[in-house]
């Protein structure tokens, strides 16, 4: 490397990209952080705290903290609404950036989930059409966002994340047809928007809730031969908070195998067994009932025959699938794609690195640790260490 301070491009502003960028800045390395959407934070900034009386180590607050770190760090130059279209390797890299297509209609407003998102709201077209609750001072115009042109960098960290499984591929569940059949991500959005878990159909508090695990994960028929690792912890923690808010809630979790949440799992699992009824089977199909309740059919394990149960709300634990952009990013960077469709480890001398769920499922905590390791490897490549 030459004598000037090397610069790194981080592609993706989710928790992996944020962490990698911040770790590099800790060592005085300038970073160009490129994010396709209008907001930093990725999927995880939308996640809500899962604490009951005590912290359940979901990591959602760490994302908020890391996002704050990054926007307040002058060494990190953030490019919102920007994507990379080509990467030329010479002495370093020449990355070509373009404004990404957000697909907003004129007058449409989107919001960030963190108070550290700048801007907090983004509007397409004329700002005069803002809805009344939106702060004008906090609103940016879509046209003002985005970077076009070439940037020279010395290494590239790809942190483009994952895509949630499309539940429409499980047609017997009828996602999209029944209002009270939602995914875990829908559930997070409901809590964000309405301050509590309320049924989409009528705004009532659901008292009987089912979680269905492994929707899209561990599914040989779909060729998805991986465990998404985060959905068992998600459902168990979420069930814990629902139960904490409403001790009368009746919660069932349909599963294949319960996966661990991380440290202290045996203690957590024993405790959560008091809150959740665990049913070892995956439901076959779902039908609508009166009052927008749902009937869920499944096989009863120890009776060997089908049974049906009624619920106010059914939550699909959709799995972590390779990011939509994976193939394109692989083409641009030359990073290979593995059997499962996630990014594989690039050659160590390529100058390209992968962080976070672009490489496969991981929790927030595991993603942050992985991003730290990736930043370390990038620094080693750049020769900023002995």
């Amino acid at each position, binding site marked *: 490397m030459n004598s000037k301070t090397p610069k790194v491009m981080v592609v993706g502003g989710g928790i992996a990209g944020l962490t990698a960028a911040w770790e590099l800045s800790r060592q005085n390395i300038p970073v160009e952080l490129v994010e396709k959407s209008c907001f930093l934070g990725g999927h995880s900034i939308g996640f809500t*705290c899962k604490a009951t*009386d005590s912290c359940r*180590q979901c990591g959602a607050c760490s994302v*908020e903290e890391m996002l704050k770190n990054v926007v307040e760090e002058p060494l990190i130059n953030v490019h919102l609404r920007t994507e990379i279209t080509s990467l030329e390797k010479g002495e370093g890299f020449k990355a070509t950036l373009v404004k990404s297509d957000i697909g907003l209609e004129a007058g449409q407003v989107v919001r960030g989930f963190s108070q550290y998102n700048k801007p907090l709201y983004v509007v397409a077209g004329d700002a005069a059409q803002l809805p009344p609750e939106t702060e004008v001072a906090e609103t940016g115009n879509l046209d003002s966002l985005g970077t076009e042109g070439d940037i020279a960098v010395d290494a590239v960290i790809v942190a483009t994340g994952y895509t949630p499984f499309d539940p429409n591929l499980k047609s017997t569940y009828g996602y999209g047809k029944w209002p009270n059949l939602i995914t875990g991500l829908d559930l997070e959005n409901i809590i964000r928007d309405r*301050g509590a878990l309320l049924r989409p159909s009528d705004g009532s508090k659901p008292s009987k809730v089912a979680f269905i695990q492994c929707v899209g994960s*561990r599914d040989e028929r779909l060729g998805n031969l991986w465990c998404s*690792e985060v959905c068992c912890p998600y459902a168990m923690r979420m069930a814990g908070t629902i139960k904490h808010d409403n001790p009368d809630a009746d919660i069932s979790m349909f599963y294949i195998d319960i*996966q661990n949440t991380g440290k202290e799992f*045996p203690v957590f699992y024993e405790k959560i067994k008091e809150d959740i009824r665990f049913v070892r089977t995956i439901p076959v199909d779902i039908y609508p009932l009166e009052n927008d309740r749902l009937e869920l059919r499944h096989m009863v394990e120890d009776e060997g025959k089908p049974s049906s149960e009624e619920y106010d709300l059914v939550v699909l634990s959709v799995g972590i699938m390779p990011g939509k952009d994976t193939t394109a990013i692989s083409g641009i960077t030359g990073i290979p794609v593995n059997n499962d469709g996630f990014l594989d480890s690039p050659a160590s001398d390529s100058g390209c690195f992968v962080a976070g769920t672009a490489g496969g499922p991981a929790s927030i905590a595991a993603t942050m640790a992985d991003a730290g390791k990736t930043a370390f490897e990038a620094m080693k490549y750049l020769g900023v260490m002995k």
Partner: protein
Amino acid sequence: MMTDKSNMVDITLNKDVLVVGAGSVGLETASKIASQGYKVSVIGQKTACARQSGCTDEMLNSGTVNIMQDVVLEDVAGVTGDFRVTLAKGEEKMKAVFGAVVVAPNYSYASLNGAYGLALSDRVMSQSQFEAFMDSDGLKKVAADSGSDADDVENVIVAFLTGFGQEGDPVSTGRALKSALAVQKTSGCKAYIYTGNIKVGAKGLERIFTEGRHAGVVCFKPSVMPEIEQNSDSVKISITDPVVRSTIELEPDYVVVEEALVVGQDNLDTATLLRIDTDLDGLLPSNNVHRFPVRSNRDGIFVASNSVDAANVALRIAELIGDGIKNVSADQAKVDEERCVICLTCYRSCPHGAIFWENGAAAISPAACQGCGICASECPMDAIQLGDFTDESLRKSVKDAVVSVEGSPSIVAFCCKNSALEAGEAAARFGHNMPAGFKMVKVPCAGKVDVEFIMKAFVEGADGVMVAACHEGNCKAERGNTYAKWRVNEIQKRLENMGLGKDCLCFTTIASNMAGEFAAKVNAFADKLA
């Protein structure tokens, strides 16, 4: 008194690092720290090859990585940047100073055969024993000797027991899955797995599980531990299969039992010496999201349990030590020597181990102090002041926070800057409705909320006082929220005794990213006061 921001001082940090644990992770961590230009001493029993763990010849020859075989930690004093360590090798004692300490625990494995009522024998092996047996082609030879190495005969049966002696984890499940697949691929052999939950939550395990099933590995997941009968030369395993609804019996030639991670007294002793907390399983460090993955409750002491941790430890050390000079606020927390009676309260209450003794009074290390203020609030002599949050400035903040608004109760909320303050600011920015008389008083940690300040808010005319802390287990100062809760309970009792009722004071916990929830809590409190 406002903080004098110019009162910054340069402190010198020792640039040497001590790694406790000379297994592969300890040695890898040492190599990564050394690659950043720091000198590393590694102590403990060496159980891995230094070169294979990343140490270069240059590091080893130059002494940048100094492996001190069989040396143990005897005593640790001092604080981050300046740990004064006593090391021992047999009777010989050595003193050394280190800027940072890394623990790379050497956990071991113990067979759980006892949990299954099994005695280890030629036919009943622990997972480790069986792995060694496979590595030495033991099973292959047995299959050949029994004449069952023809492709269509499966005379040698191996049963794996996992997930009943313990809940298990992907590491344990992964070992069983890999061994079972290897058994199944050995001509004339067949593998059965009896398991609770198959822990496939790690890279590649679902594929190995699927490959095994396709190769013929049979997996049973009974809801209770199988019935096991061990005789002199045989073991019988019976389960009730829920699907076919009958009892399935198996007499395997080999039984392989899972193993549990054993923390070991040596690791616990190290934790005690370093005054760092362990989690509920006794593993280092304690379980707090703010410190994931490698920080302990003490600044300058880190834990590396795997290869990913090793890199993260190296980053934290470079951030901490840098070039050996750190610019810190000299009056972040200061002890008034005249007032200090050396009661040890601050020393005991400091979660960061930042307090020590100097010239007959307590002294606070500006390098290790995190400015939480727990010591200042707990000190019975009011001898400790925080630069940014003096008692005087907090009294003024409290006074300013009591506002009289028509039709709205006056609420003073003491908000931890790490959680509630963030949530409150976000609630305002996102336009959540809050009572007009609601005002926040920023505190460095709920542990800095003194009884005096709460009472002052009432004296100034507040209708309600709220103390808003981090959730239990989420406090950056470990116990600041607990101290705050105790104090609130104490004052509530006093208020009741005074006949004022306790409902005008509340304690709540909140996360930084929960603006809507915080607004709802504030509004509920206001409704109660109305």
